[in-house]
């Protein structure tokens, strides 16, 4: 009597399937979220109402529960959800479907033989949203909203691995806003922040969806351009240079224009770390500044093969 009430009132879904995967129990939580009444579904195959469950992983789990008495755990991370329900938390999260943590286990008779399996469904949408937010905060720069430096290093490492494995080239552009300090000094830090935000936005709008835009330092940004060689990266840098040069930043009653210097570098086969690539781009940036600012310098940092006794003097 009490158990039946608990079964119906518990704040999680409970489904019981027999060995042929026919539904034998469907509690009130399941009724509410599926809009399928128990009388409608009991006695029918679960796949009749949820054909999308006819997958290898679902089959595997049911079989392991029925054959071994195993407990299957479906994490939200891998599966997202098992039953496509709407969440009460949908309004304030990015998820249109309820995110679920689901477990499956055996139910035995008096002789300890497994006759049924239970499926328990928990709504973890709120937790998943929170986790997502934390992840985002971890990889983004709080001021500009672009990806942060930590993420940049992580990603560059991945790209280099990919280059080593598949040979797909990529390039980076390091941008440095010219005379940024004087903007802060002349117009104040709030204006400085505004300029940074707008600057990042202008660049991002121009990049492709596969490109990554990250904040490298105070007034330095780095574009990671997959599947891009040095020449194409240089062309892109020139486009960005022009956009920034021409744009009029309006802050309160002031109008101001800025420019940026850029260093462009492409990954080369002798590079093994992100630092090596960034160093190359940095050297180019330094040269761009020396050349008068509002300039782009792009070069290949492929090291020449040394003869014994020779020193690498580098090529700038």
């Amino acid at each position, binding site marked *: 009597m009490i158990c039946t009430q608990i079964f119906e009132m518990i704040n999680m879904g409970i489904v019981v399937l027999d060995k042929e995967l026919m539904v034998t129990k469907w509690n009130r939580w399941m009724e509410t979220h599926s809009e399928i009444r128990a009388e409608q579904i009991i006695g029918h195959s679960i796949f009749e109402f949820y054909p999308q469950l006819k*997958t*290898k992983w679902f089959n595997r*789990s049911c079989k392991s529960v029925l054959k071994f008495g195993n407990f299957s755990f479906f994490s939200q*991370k891998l599966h997202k959800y098992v039953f496509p329900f709407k969440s009460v938390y949908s309004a304030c999260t990015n998820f249109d479907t309820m995110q679920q943590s689901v477990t499956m*286990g055996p139910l035995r008779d008096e002789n300890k033989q497994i006759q049924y399996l239970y499926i328990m469904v928990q709504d973890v949408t709120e937790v998943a949203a929170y986790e997502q937010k934390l992840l985002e905060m971890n990889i983004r720069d709080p001021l500009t909203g672009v990806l942060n430096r930590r993420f940049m290093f992580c990603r560059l490492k991945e790209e280099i691995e990919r280059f080593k494995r598949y040979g797909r080239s990529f390039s980076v552009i390091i941008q440095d806003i010219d005379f940024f300090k004087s903007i802060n000094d002349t117009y104040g830090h709030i204006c400085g922040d505004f300029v940074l935000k707008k600057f990042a936005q202008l660049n991002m709008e121009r990049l492709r969806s596969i490109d990554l835009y990250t904040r490298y330092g105070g007034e330095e940004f780095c574009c990671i351009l997959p599947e891009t060689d040095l020449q194409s990266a240089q062309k892109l840098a020139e486009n960005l240079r022009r956009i920034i040069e021409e744009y009029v930043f309006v802050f309160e009653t002031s109008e101001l224009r800025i420019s940026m210097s850029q260093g462009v570098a492409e990954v080369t086969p002798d590079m093994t770390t992100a630092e090596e690539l960034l160093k190359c781009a940095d050297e180019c940036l330094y040269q761009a500044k020396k050349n008068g600012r509002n300039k782009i310098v792009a070069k290949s940092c492929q090291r020449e093969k040394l003869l014994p006794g020779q020193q690498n003097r580098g090529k700038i």
Partner: protein
Amino acid sequence: MNPDKSLFSEEQKDILQEIMNIAFGNATADLADVIDVYVELSVPDIELLGAGELPGYIVKNLQTYSQTVIINQRFLGDFKGSGFFVFPNGAGHDLAAILEDSNPQCCEAIPAVSLEKEIIMEIGNILIGACVGKISELLNTSVIYSPPQAIYEKSVEFNRFLKSFDPANTVIAMKTVFRFQQKDIKGFILVITDYESIEWLKDALDKFMESYQ
């Protein structure tokens, strides 16, 4: 700390070995049906150890592989202990290919590393469940499981986990090497019984043989 090897009589050790042989053999046969892929489980190696020797035992076994991920799952009941599924890191990609998984909701948003880890966890859970399940069945008992956890070798969690065994206790470590033939992926499974279960186990072994008198 010397393990109390007199805990088990010679005959009980033989019975345990045969039960393990049967359990792992039966598990292999059923696994082919459950995961639809042939996985070979070797004849199990059984050792009685002081719990203090366990970390050394685990590390020694890990040396065969350059980098591993360990799936740990506790089981509880009269028969209590931990199951460890040790899998070479990086082979998760091959495993996913073998399983030919098509889970439409997942995959796009998840980095490859996480996806591989989740697949390893799922398979680890099934393999541990198969071995522990069959042993329980033969000994006429049933267990419940805690959710599986992934631990990476040489991580903080791994060191903490190595330190968690009470050196005063004796444990039984049962090891089987598994091999997914299709891609020659090898790893091993350890079933380690808690000290508290040993008395129950001795009893269960005796009862098992009684039905064969």
